[in-house]
């Protein structure tokens, strides 16, 4: 439960929606932007979902860890692979592109300046230039709005 005093009119079921809807026009523009990564299939939804969840794990963000993106589920991402994410460095459950993207995503969260040319080249090699641009924009949203959830204490979705 967020520490923000919410008005009685804040009745959305999902706690993230309940909080962000305090700024409705901004929430709507954010939702439309964030949905494009999935609806336009700008990237492999499994890679994207793994990175979204890993970013949320690193930051300890409960809400984004509690939700699953339908596009990734439809693409076959299993809960057993999600469970292996916490040890992806040593797990054999992840392919080369997934590992390159996870490595880049972790460094993006911790210190974007620390992303090496080799880390970046591995992602560009796997996703191409336009795919890499979509990927870093997705990471910006995952990182920024996982922190949003932590800062405002947005709890897990039911």
């Amino acid at each position, binding site marked *: 439960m967020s*520490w*923000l*005093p*919410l*008005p009685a009119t804040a009745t959305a079921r999902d706690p993230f929606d309940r*909080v*962000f809807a*305090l*700024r409705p*026009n*901004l929430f709507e*523009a*954010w939702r*439309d*932007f964030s949905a*494009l*990564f999935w609806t*336009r299939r*700008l990237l492999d939804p499994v890679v994207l979902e793994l990175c979204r969840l890993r970013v949320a794990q690193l*930051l*300890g*963000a409960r809400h984004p860890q509690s939700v699953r993106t339908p596009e990734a589920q439809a693409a076959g991402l299993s809960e057993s692979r999600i469970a292996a994410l916490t040890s992806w460095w040593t797990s054999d459950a992840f392919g080369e592109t997934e590992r390159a993207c996870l490595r*880049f995503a972790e460094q*993006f969260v911790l210190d*974007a*300046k620390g*992303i090496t*040319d080799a880390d*970046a*080249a591995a992602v*560009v090699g796997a996703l191409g*230039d*336009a795919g*890499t*641009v*979509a990927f*870093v*924009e997705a*990471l*910006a*949203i995952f*990182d*920024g*709005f996982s*922190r*949003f959830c*932590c*800062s*405002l*204490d947005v709890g897990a979705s039911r």
Partner: protein
Amino acid sequence: MIAARVKAPATRSADPIQASPLALQPELLQAFLRLYGTLWSHGELDQASKELARIRNARTIDCPICKAIRFKGAREEGLTEDIVDQIRDGYQASDLSARQKTVLRYVDAFLASPGEIGEDLRRELLAHFTPSQVVELTAAVALFMGFSKIAVALGGLPDAIPVHEQPTPAWPVTP
């Protein structure tokens, strides 16, 4: 300087965004411009507070382009370079107002340890801002941080860019 990681599109556009790698994803770019324009020009929080937060984030993430920009609307609300000069480590002892210091403390906490926003800071935020303004400030810092990191991660920026004023982002974009 970090080398460019991707190639910007071939264009003769004088618009720095349209000439940047972000233009490789035109639909995302349009949606982002709408989001950013909504944040800046259709908000409930004053522009000077958002600009304080943006500049604190830019200096912490160390994004050359974000550090160099000053948005016109915030300047018109009184955010002078004298104030901007105080957005540095040690700002607690500066002449900034209590409200301004609260914004900076919140940005610092968001960037360093967002899960540890303590009772004191929560109380301060609610003393200076309405709940919807706190949401807007938090979303603003999330976007500022994310897009500073994008600029850093994609590379290709000079180490320093002269400070310059830009129009406040708006939506719809006016030519």
